[in-house]
């Protein structure tokens, strides 16, 4: 069986102009998504996620590399590829001149569905997305969460094999976000292949079966969320914010049970505290030893926390940076 999506050596460089330099948005990205898989592209803004998605959906022309949906090359046979994919874009681009119901029926007409099927599908999806009551309303009068559900309903109208979602929960309130997660989970259980970009770690952790962590146009790591977290040294993370004349890092690194020390750079924070992240094996007395070492270095300690690693930690470990918002 061919992959639902295969991306091989994808490169996209936006040409520069006289005033702006060329931008290498994607620099050699390769991955495959199996049929029925829920796959995530995780990374900060500007990492190259949306450009990768654009190349898959034919709206961005790749500079090099190959993208195939269900075995069909999207550059050579775009129309056939487009029949197999559906997109929930980051910009909610609902047709504002027609009703909610017509958003669905017109979309189906673009894909050549016969009238009876358009109508019955629209009825079913409106009910599934709990939009039946709003069928006669104009899309822009809906709340953000409802608009997002309408976008998903629209995407499903032509029965795609692969659903691509670009930051689907951005700007939604927590309740709407949870509802959307439920919807996506249900679609996944129904056998649909889903590919989602996000920069919300929790979302990626809950929904995706496999994740590619992407930054500066390259995939840093690709695995299941559990395996990504397992790959971190130690098993626990100890965060310390310290301020001292002489660096305490070397003292801490030498302690038994401390497997690795990383300095975290945080953009936009401008206190003089150094933020240290220790990957530790929490054996007896580790915390005591760490605190003693801090005191011995005459360091000012502002914050201590011992946590289970999360995807965010994996991300920080890989990039040395907190996720940029």
């Amino acid at each position, binding site marked *: 069986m061919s992959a639902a999506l295969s991306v091989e050596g994808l490169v996209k460089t*936006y040409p520069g102009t006289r005033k702006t330099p060329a931008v290498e948005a994607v620099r050699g990205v390769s991955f495959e998504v199996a049929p029925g898989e829920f796959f995530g592209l995780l990374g900060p803004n500007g990492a190259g996620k949306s450009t990768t998605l*654009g190349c898959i*959906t*034919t*709206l*961005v*022309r790749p500079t090099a590399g190959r993208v195939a949906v269900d075995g069909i090359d999207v550059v050579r046979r*775009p*129309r*056939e590829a*487009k*029949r197999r*994919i*559906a*997109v929930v*874009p980051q*910009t909610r*681009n*609902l*047709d*504002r*001149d*027609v009703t909610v119901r017509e958003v669905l029926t*017109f*979309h189906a*007409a*673009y*894909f*050549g569905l016969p009238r009876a099927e358009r109508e019955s599908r629209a009825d079913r999806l409106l009910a599934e997305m709990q939009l039946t009551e709003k069928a006669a309303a104009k899309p822009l009068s809906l709340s953000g969460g409802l608009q997002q559900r309408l976008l998903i309903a*629209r995407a499903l109208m032509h029965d795609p094999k692969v659903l691509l979602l670009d930051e689907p929960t951005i700007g939604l309130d927590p309740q709407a976000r949870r509802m959307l997660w439920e919807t996506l989970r249900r679609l996944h259980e129904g056998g649909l292949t889903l590919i989602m970009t996000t920069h919300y770690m929790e979302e990626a952790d809950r929904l995706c079966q496999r994740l590619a962590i992407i930054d500066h146009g390259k995939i840093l790591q690709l695995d299941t969320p559990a395996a990504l977290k397992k790959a971190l040294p130690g098993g626990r993370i100890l965060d310390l914010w310290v301020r001292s004349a002489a660096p305490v890092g070397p003292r801490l690194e030498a302690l038994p049970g401390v497997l690795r020390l990383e300095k975290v750079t945080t953009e936009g924070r401008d206190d003089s505290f150094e933020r240290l992240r220790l990957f530790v094996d929490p054996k007896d007395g580790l915390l005591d030893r760490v605190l003693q070492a801090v005191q011995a270095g005459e360091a000012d300690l502002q914050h201590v926390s011992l946590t289970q690693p999360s995807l965010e930690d994996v991300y920080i470990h890989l990039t040395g940076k907190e996720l940029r918002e």
Partner: protein
Amino acid sequence: MTAFLALLRRDLKVASRNAIPLLMATLTQPILVVLVFGNILPRLHLVAAEFRTVMVPGLMSITMLMAGVQGVLMPLTVDLSGSREVDERLLAPISVLGVALEKVTAGAIHAAVAGLVALPAMMLLMHRVTGVEVHPRWVALLPLVILCGLLSAAFGLTIGSQVQPRFSGLLFAVILGPMMLFGCAYYPWSGLSVIGPLQYVFLLNPLVFMSESMRLAVTPDVAHMPAPLLLVGTLGFAVLFTLLGARSFERRTVL
């Protein structure tokens, strides 16, 4: 082709629902001009009576140009700069060129209808005014109206896919205004022989060919450009703007 027709159906349906505001937007201007220049000023003997006959086809061409601007240019500018509704169309099983050509087709129908509605509206307003010699020749009028509609929609696509919304005010002052004043809407092109070879510079303005086309079709008694020149000009500009428009549309939509 299915996707093309479905997109066209959607556009015509939405336009027909908004028929009243669309008609108001396109007809207000010619009607007011007719009232002032066709009725008030001639009575005050400030303009010659023949002016009324000369300006009717000119106002039709301006009406069509503005319909192309309102039907294609303005919506496209908004779409490309923010709402991105166009992306849904681009993701339909149709080529980018197909999406662009559909926009031109829908815009051309819009502009042709606007021109055809403007004519009887103006005739009605002047039906008691003597000295107006408007005799539409429908056999010539219908194909020419469609051709001029195509030209204005293609013009809308070309400019609409290049102009930033913050410059749309400038667009009226710098592009559309001069086009209308120098578009032979208020004087026949043949009369410009009085200004010597400069007469030919006017041929750079696509609106000149639209005005002269309408002149041929609705006021056959007024001197107009030779039919072959007028056809070549209108068709040539329609093809040129369709090609340019499709190219810049593709550049703006597929990165």
